């Protein structure tokens, strides 16, 4: 029954997908993993070096191996994206005019032109997405949401001394994650109430107007219920003496160990390397070296 499947889906609403294998990666301090993810994202944006990004991809694959995550799990998200990915890469290669200005033409037929720059842009697009997909999958396979919130809270804590609302931000994230199961439950309740009044939430494709008509009587009450529950939570927090982050102590204390330092240092080295390779245009150097020696 399509309705039932949609209800079940709500029960499984989670951020990411934890896969306990008890590996070294799983036991790393969540702060260390968050830092590595942050470095990964920065490098993927900043570095234009195919060599640098390839090194990164190898490191992520090595991480998956150490974490004992089967590759087919990690690739599960990537596989359905292949057609889009190829399409978008082709778009980069052929349709963005900026890439042909001042570039070397490698191939030309009719209106289609491939320049060295546009080809590189297409390949980089695929490389970047693969790194992000595999890297963040590795993170979410090896980190529970509880570890995630602990990690965020401890990581931003030093920012408090800079007068940034770090504690407040960590609490916001914590409450967001806390509320997900409540929302799933409330939505299920609302959907059942609407279904009993004849609404059909089957998964079949419907057009815009139909879908919107179906969603509004669900979404508006969902917002209102959530706001009411927010009021209740505010009262409960104040009754328990919440008066801001000042002077709070903490039950949970994260303990960093040697492997955490090693991993962060390694990631820092790799990140610096990948960005440096991009700065010195290593790809072009390698290309010209290869073309003159072969």
């Amino acid at each position: 029954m399509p309705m039932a499947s949609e209800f079940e889906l709500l029960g499984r609403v989670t951020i990411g997908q934890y896969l306990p294998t008890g590996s070294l990666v799983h036991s790393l301090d969540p702060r260390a993993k968050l830092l590595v993810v942050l470095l990964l994202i920065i490098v993927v944006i900043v570095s234009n070096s195919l060599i640098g990004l390839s090194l990164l991809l190898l490191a992520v694959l090595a991480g998956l191996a150490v974490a004992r995550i089967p590759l087919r799990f990690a690739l599960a998200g990537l596989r359905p994206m292949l057609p889009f990915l190829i399409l978008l890469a082709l778009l980069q290669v052929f349709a963005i005019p900026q890439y042909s200005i001042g570039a070397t033409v490698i191939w030309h037929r009719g209106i289609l032109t491939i320049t060295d720059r546009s080809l590189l842009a297409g390949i980089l697009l695929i490389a970047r997405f693969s790194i992000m997909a595999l890297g963040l999958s590795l993170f979410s396979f090896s980190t529970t949401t509880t570890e995630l919130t602990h990690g965020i809270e401890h990581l931003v804590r030093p920012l408090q001394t800079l007068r940034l609302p770090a504690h407040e931000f960590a609490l916001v994230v914590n409450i967001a994650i806390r509320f997900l199961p409540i929302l799933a439950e409330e939505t299920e309740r609302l959907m059942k109430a609407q279904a009993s009044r004849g609404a059909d939430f089957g998964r079949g494709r419907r057009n815009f107007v139909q879908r919107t008509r179906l969603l509004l009587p669900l979404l508006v009450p969902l917002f209102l219920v959530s706001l009411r529950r927010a009021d209740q939570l505010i009262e409960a927090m104040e009754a328990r003496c919440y008066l801001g982050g000042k002077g709070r102590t903490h039950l949970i204390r994260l303990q960093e160990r040697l492997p955490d330092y090693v991993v962060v240092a390694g990631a820092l080295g790799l990140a610096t390397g990948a960005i440096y390779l991009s700065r010195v245009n290593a790809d072009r150097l390698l290309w010209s070296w290869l073309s003159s020696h072969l």
Partner: protein
Amino acid sequence: MDGAEEPLIRIEGLHYTYQAGTHRAVPALCGIDLTIHAGEYVALLGANGSGKSTLLRHLNALLLPTAGNVWIAGWNTRDATHLRNVRTTVGMVFQVPDSQIVATVVEEDVAFGPENLGIPEDELRQRVDWALSTVRLSELQHRASHLLSAGQKQRLAIAGALAMHPRCLLLDEATAMLDPVGRRQLLETVGHLHQDGMTVVAATHNMAEAALTQRIIVLSEGQLALQGEPRAIFSQIETLRALHLDVPHPTLLARELSARVDGFPADLLTIGELADAVATYLGEPAGAAI
């Protein structure tokens, strides 16, 4: 005040009006005078909208009086410098189990209150462990809080209040959304706490629950309507009906029986008492024969 015998809760001339926008004012409490002493177990009864929640919210300074005063252990709730003292003295458990849990892990939720108080780490751990064992949730300390049953969530809420070492617990219809098993376990926990000296004030619609207390306070349209021991209150069936309140089923049954059976007591409160009375009634002739 003479200081020597300061009651735990003292309310004088309490008025409260919800300021609903600029145009509509909703008077919710109209002149309440009330004292509650340390160690009492009090039930707060009244129809929906009679002002129970509003009154309880005044007892830990979630609301401040429009007129009149509330003192908790001698501190006026209007005095902002004693806000922490007031809120640690009086812990609150609300009606909706899910909306009062802040953390995603059981033990971290218990720690939320004392963390706010700045309790040092080792004492924090002791308080959490003690509070969880008091409500018998120790085995679930690492469980995700949303996976608990409704009854367990309410016991978690009690643990969260207990971890602040309060002298008094306020329960605002805390059993309303529980199944019978969850309700029974919660009431057992509260009963034990009261035996150990905790003051308890419980708003409820459940008359069996009210029958367990030492004093019943009945609110009606923001005013004190009745006050007294459960046995005295529940004997006034007609008055209670006029206030849209029920009487415990055993009391009703005892009434009917005493009207028909000579010497059967009319003022029974609980099923236990009723069973005893029936046993005595049936047993006596047999006993007399021996």
